[in-house]
């Protein structure tokens, strides 16, 4: 099988809000086991891209997962096919325990589930799935804690575990390290490497440059909705376009 058949690929993905082009023909790919970074200044369209890929905003263009077109599917269908995401604000289900937060991502419920709930025996395999997902992100023994009582760092990790549970092929992590202190951020980088070693491809969006540059295999840089750079972290560090996007062009050369 060619590499085309695996992972996530977008082709000419564009998002418009009224007259504003939030994403402009974005081409991006994430292979299994690969950690890809997507960075850019605030307002560049990174979260819009995640929303577009996962079906939370209307977009033009094509999205492929494992070689199959998935644009046009509603978000929950994309997740069931193995494309999952986290949210900037974590968005755990505060009412539920850690284990339930992950269980709900594996057993979604539906008409059939009513009969199982009423008359069936409780599935024991769910417990193993939960433990496995938590172990991937290095959390153990907090299954029965209500997520609201967790620290912010732990909440973010549970969010990642929730995205990984079940059949995650590609996970999009939207600012998973925002709000973490430097030490937590460091530990988090280790976890992301562990995830990719387990098979799924990871798209990492974050403002913590040292995290992204330190952990990713490849980097995409976005500005004003367009991908302006693709390459390795080492190349990104010295690329003048990347530095300009973050720190701005010096006044003198901007005037020129």
């Amino acid at each position, binding site marked *: 099988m060619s590499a085309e058949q695996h992972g996530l690929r977008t082709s000419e993905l564009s998002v418009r809000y009224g007259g504003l082009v939030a994403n402009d023909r974005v081409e991006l790919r994430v292979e299994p086991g690969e950690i890809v970074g997507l960075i850019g200044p605030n307002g560049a369209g990174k979260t819009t891209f995640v929303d577009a890929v*996962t079906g*939370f905003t209307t977009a033009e263009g094509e999205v492929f997962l494992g070689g199959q077109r998935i644009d046009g599917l*509603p*978000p*929950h269908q994309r*997740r*069931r096919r193995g494309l*999952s*995401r986290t*949210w900037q604000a974590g*968005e*755990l*289900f*505060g*009412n*539920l325990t850690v284990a*339930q937060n992950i*269980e*709900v*991502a594996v*057993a*979604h*419920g*539906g*008409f059939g*589930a*009513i009969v*199982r*709930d*009423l008359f069936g025996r*409780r599935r024991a395999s769910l417990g193993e799935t939960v433990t496995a997902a938590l172990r991937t992100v290095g959390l153990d023994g907090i299954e029965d804690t209500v997520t609201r009582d967790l620290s912010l760092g732990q909440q973010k990790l549970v969010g990642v575990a*929730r*995205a990984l549970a*079940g059949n995650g092929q590609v996970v999009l992590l939207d600012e998973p390290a925002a709000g973490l202190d430097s030490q937590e951020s460091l530990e988090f980088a280790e976890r992301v490497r562990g995830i990719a070693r387990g098979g799924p491809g990871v798209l990492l969006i974050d403002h913590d440059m040292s995290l992204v540059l330190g952990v990713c295999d490849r980097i995409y840089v976005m500005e004003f909705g367009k991908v302006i750079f693709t390459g390795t972290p080492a190349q990104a560090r010295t690329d003048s376009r990347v530095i300009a996007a973050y720190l701005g062009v010096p006044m003198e050369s901007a005037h020129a």
Partner: protein
Amino acid sequence: MDTYLQFIVLGLGLGAVYIGLTTGLVLVYRATGIINFAQGAMAMWGAYVFAQLRIDGTLVLPIGRITFGAKPVILVAALIGVLMSVLLGIVAHYLVFRPVRHAPVLAQVVVSVALMLTLQALVVIRFGPNSIVVDSLVPAGTVTLFGVEVSSRELIMTAVMIALAALVWAYLRFTRAGVATRAASENERGAMLMGFAPDRLAGVAMVLASAVGTVGVLLGSSLTGLNPANYTLLVVPALAVLLVARMESIGVVVAASLVLGAFQSVVNLLVSKPWWPQWAQSGVDQVIPFVVVMVILFLFGRRLPSRGTLQTVRLPDVHVPRIRPVPALVLVAAAVAVLALTQDTYRFGVTYSIILMLVALSYVIVTGYLGQISLAQTSFAGAAGFTLSKVTTNWDMPFPLAILFCSLVAALLGMIVALPAFRIRGAQLAIVTIAAALAIERFVFNNYALTPPSGNPIANPSLFGLNVGVREGSDLSRMAFSLTVLVVAVLVVLAFVRLASGTTGRMFLAVRANERAAASVGIDVRTAKVIGFGLSAFVAGMAGCLIGYSAGQLSAESFTVFVGLQILAVAYLGGITSFGGAVIAGIIGPLGIIYVVLHEVFDMGDYYALISGIALIATAILNPVGIAGETRRQIAWLRGKLRARPADPPPVPDRKVLSDVS
């Protein structure tokens, strides 16, 4: 053709009332983000004050009264009436609405519904339950329009209300406070950072809303008379107009109000024609607003503006239940003991409490777990009861099968009502469900073609040849029936616990917490809503069947919109997120055991609605977890004390974020 024009003009009178109420709704919504279900009731208070002043010169206050020597002249009386409503609006702003400005939508809906119930109860106590005649501010007369002689009164009323609506429009457009109100309705934080106090702007809006609404009802009530129900519920078509006007446009409010009023009037003319099908004569004028709301929502649902507010409080937590045999058996044994020790009225009260518990449980499912506001639960119950009378008398369907079948019918209806919930949520869903409930009440339950005034008889239930009916001879409340109700309730509760603690419960809670996040973990949110509404309507249907059996026939009074709102009130009071809350709701609910005791021992039946309304307002503001939640908190605290370990820290308010109401 002449008759049509005459009826259109007559309908404009109703349209003028809608203008008043809806203009008030727009003002309050833009200033506070709250949809004021009590708008009609608040305006009605002023109209009653006016009417009573003109009848015997007495100024009736909520407590006490002032008797004037002579009847005040009509304009003075009207002025006093409007003033009383305005005072009421100010009190309501500070005591009721301001405290819940940053609360979850559910608390806001509940609080305004509670205010509506309270005012209605207060009107019954202070002015009596019967319809009274109201003096007309506008003299009767006729004028010739397009060669047709039509009533001039409605035309003058319409002109007055259009003028008032124009004043409100000018306030919002040209005054600094008005512009700031619009600004704050779009971006409250921004307005605060500009130096405006949204609370004060909201107070001004409340005063204006009360005044305009009251003038509308003052004028309208001279045509129709006043009774405690009619103007309270007139808020429902006004809410429909509010949605049509996209919660903001005064111009559309005026136009849509007049069109709706005229249309309803013409429909009432049409249904009297011989060619109009007889079965569809009743309630068509109520079905129209509902249909209008549905069409508008399906066409524009996503684009209805919602008001950005600073939300700081979250919905009460759910504690996922488990089946614990010992407490469960104790509870059932206690219920059996109480039933055995009581008889007649009291046993009936206890039995009814068990049934009410099921209705409350249906609110727990749809609101507590799924997070959707439904005001149509008693319509589901009524639909099941209605079906029950048909299948038991026409088809001789036997007892256990019959209630299963009828509850499935209710579930189907629930799934249909879930469809608007695909596109809207929060208070707007509350509007749709209350409009649906009113339409069903008027079109089905009060339809003599479908529900004869003599009632719909329901055959007594029997099981394996054993009569489990409610009455036999002089025994008005048989133990066999009460035990049957208890068994049905236990089975329903067991099923509820299984579902709530299983995949289904988790799915509901995930949807309640965050629909987008739920979709992102693979949950089909639409299916979840259909299932939630279906299950909840099924449980309500069970209760409806039991209510039917308990009366031996189906009567529309058991399933009115008001009964539904009252049960919502006690469900919220007990605790909308737990089975324990439903039990408490059953005990304190209308016609339940506490009600019976109040009625029989203290002769305070009239005060029941007032007390429950006030208690609900207080609960929604002070203690959103309800009685059950508070009790659980106390127990947890006590346990912590006993174990000599620190109790749970008090909950931290959520991150203060700009969040959409929708």
